[in-house]
């Protein structure tokens, strides 16, 4: 089972939208896919119409006193299951801090179902914390959405340095531009300029679109509801690029 995490220290940059749509595309392509909504806000869980509730809460889960299989929920998409969010995830840092080798803990939890899935996608909360460090140790790859702005680029550089310097077995990093509005000059400049500078930046870029935002109303991934929409096609391109770059086949 490969583990891919959508991560950015900032919130509202398109992590959950990417996680949900890429998970739907993976399942469509025959990957047995698990999406773990690690964000206590539970947006991915909400989008799949599942209750944001994990029996026993975060402590039982982190201490591996829960049978992971009993916590999983099938989604409306065949081949895609969800490990829901729970509001107690806001204390996941503390729960991890109370364990030995906290950085390896998320990997061990996922190990319980490693034979049942080809791909796990972790939708991470926006922070840099023990949770994210455990994600970095667990994931084979980080998918990093970037808003086309100068400060985002600086944050991305910080992340690259952190992953290389602090993580024992660093994951691959693939960044992609998100919420791109090509009518804005700055967006165009950053997108066109940065792509050539960093080999980690994917060619696919997700356009800013009210259709992406509508997912919160319709509660269906865009790639399922409107697969021909430019944003859905951009997710499909990103997925294909991720498959090739990360050797997911």
């Amino acid at each position, binding site marked *: 089972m490969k583990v891919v995490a959508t991560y950015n220290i900032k919130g509202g940059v398109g992590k959950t939208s990417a996680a949900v749509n890429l998970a739907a595309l993976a399942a469509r392509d025959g990957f*047995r896919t698990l999406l773990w909504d690690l964000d206590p806000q539970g947006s991915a869980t909400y989008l799949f119409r599942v209750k944001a509730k994990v029996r026993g809460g975060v402590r039982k889960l982190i201490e591996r006193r829960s049978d992971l299989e009993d916590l*999983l*929920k*099938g989604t*409306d998409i065949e081949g895609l*299951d969800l490990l829901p969010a729970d509001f107690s995830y806001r204390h996941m840092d503390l729960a991890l801090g109370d364990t030995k080798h906290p950085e390896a803990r998320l990997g061990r939890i996922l190990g319980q179902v490693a034979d049942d899935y080809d791909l796990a996608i972790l939708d991470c909360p926006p922070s840099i914390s023990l949770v994210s460090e455990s994600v970095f140790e667990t994931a084979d790859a980080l998918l990093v959405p970037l808003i086309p702005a100068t400060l985002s680029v600086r944050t991305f550089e910080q992340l690259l340095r952190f992953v290389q310097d602090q993580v024992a077995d660093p994951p691959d990093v693939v960044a992609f531009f998100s919420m791109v509005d090509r009518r804005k000059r700055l967006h165009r400049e950053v997108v066109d300029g940065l792509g050539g500078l960093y080999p980690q930046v994917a060619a696919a870029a997700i356009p800013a679109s009210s259709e992406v935002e509508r997912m919160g109303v319709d509660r269906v991934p865009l790639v399922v509801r409107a697969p021909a929409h430019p944003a859905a096609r951009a997710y499909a391109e990103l997925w294909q690029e991720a498959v090739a770059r990360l050797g997911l086949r």
Partner: protein
Amino acid sequence: MPRRPVVFAVGPELDERRIARWLPRTERSSPVRSSDRTLLDTFDGRLRHEGLVLWRRGRGATAALVLEGAGPSPLSSPWVGPAGAVDRLLAGELPDGVLGTRLRVVVGERALLPRVRIRTRTVPLRVCNGDGKTVVRMWIEEPALAGRAAANGALGRRLVVSGVLGYDGEFDRAVAALGRRLQRAELGLPDEALEAAGLPPGGFSSAVDVPLEPGMRADHAMASICRRLAGVLEVNFAGVVADTDPEFLHDLRVAIRRSRSALKDMRAVLTPEDTSHAREDLRWIQEVTGPTRDLDVLLHEWPSMVEPVPAAMSGDLQPLVDLLHKERQTAFSTMRRHLRSRRYVAAWDRWKAVIAQPAFQGPEAGHPIGDMAGRRIRAVYDGMVKMGSAIDESSPPEALHDLRKRGKELRYLLELFGGMWPAEHVKPLVSTLKGLQDELGHFQDDEIQVKELRSLGPELAAAPGGTDSLIALGFVVEGLTARQNQARQDFARRFADFSRPATRQIVRRTFR
């Protein structure tokens, strides 16, 4: 893990409106779709025996292999074979990944073959909860045979109810509500389709499994066994000449050897006129199929044979591998010519005429089969004990080869007639015999393989890269020789087990 799907047999009147009356919040989940899929399995139904169902779905760029029964949800992988209709898929042609790995373990050397093609119209349904979330999946299937078997018509309409992970209660309630009104389908779709197409759902077995009673007339027993063995040969024949996979030839040769063995051990059941032609004809068929089988075995064992070759030299063996494949192709072409010859047709017709007789006329045709087979089993066992006891370190290899031949005879006797005696007596004997035969088999196979490889030396030397290949071949031959020596050393232990007093006593008491 979600519950296993439940399948109901339904009539043409059942539609989603009626289901919605029984199960509120049932709705169409996506448009009606049509699918075209081909069921794949080995000739002997290995996937079905493992509870697996493999489909090739779709065509062209979207074609995929879908494996059901290997886990909570189906495994799928893009189709990697030719774009047109599939005629066979060998283990080496399977895709990498979980699906390919799972299949390779089960199919071994057998090819996956298209068994039956089904076109299905599917009406996808779902039951939702108050949040509009799917909690139970259902679909109405209207399958029909397609392709060559299409004339056999439509298959039963069915409603499949499938669980969603984490919503077991909703699934159980849906199944209970439907179960009060509908009957469960007796057969799964693959089995129903295979039966409708006139194919055995479990595949073709090469086992003899002819029920015998000790008091049965020997000629009746022999006729049943020989007819069954002839049937085994005939169902495997097409796969042999098409070179579908190596197991067809293996099973054909086993059927011939068993027939020859039965003829030899029960010769008094038939007349000398019947047996003399038949023994010669069957011996010839075995002879002409031998070289191809020897090379199949060699190529199958090649990965273990090259283990002693240093990694840096393993690439040097390629000219030899190419040569072996060429030799195998030549041997196969010769064999196929023989199997399509007038001589083969005449030999087979003669044998079929012998076994089609209503009664055999040999001097012991009316004897009880239990007495005859028991006597023969005991005699062959005693003969083996005598032969094996005379073998020591100075005995020539031929002594071990002869013992192996007798061992095969005993094995076939036990396979053909052993069912007449209690399994608790026969099984331990078969098991100890198998241990001995495996050792003798290694000893002899390694010798044959060394001879085969040595015989390629001159041609290999003349090939580009042949000199390096010859040097690497030295390691292979050395490894085989060491293995053969080991088999010879292990023989004494295996034979001691086979001939120990307790085993002798079982044989004496059982096969009187």
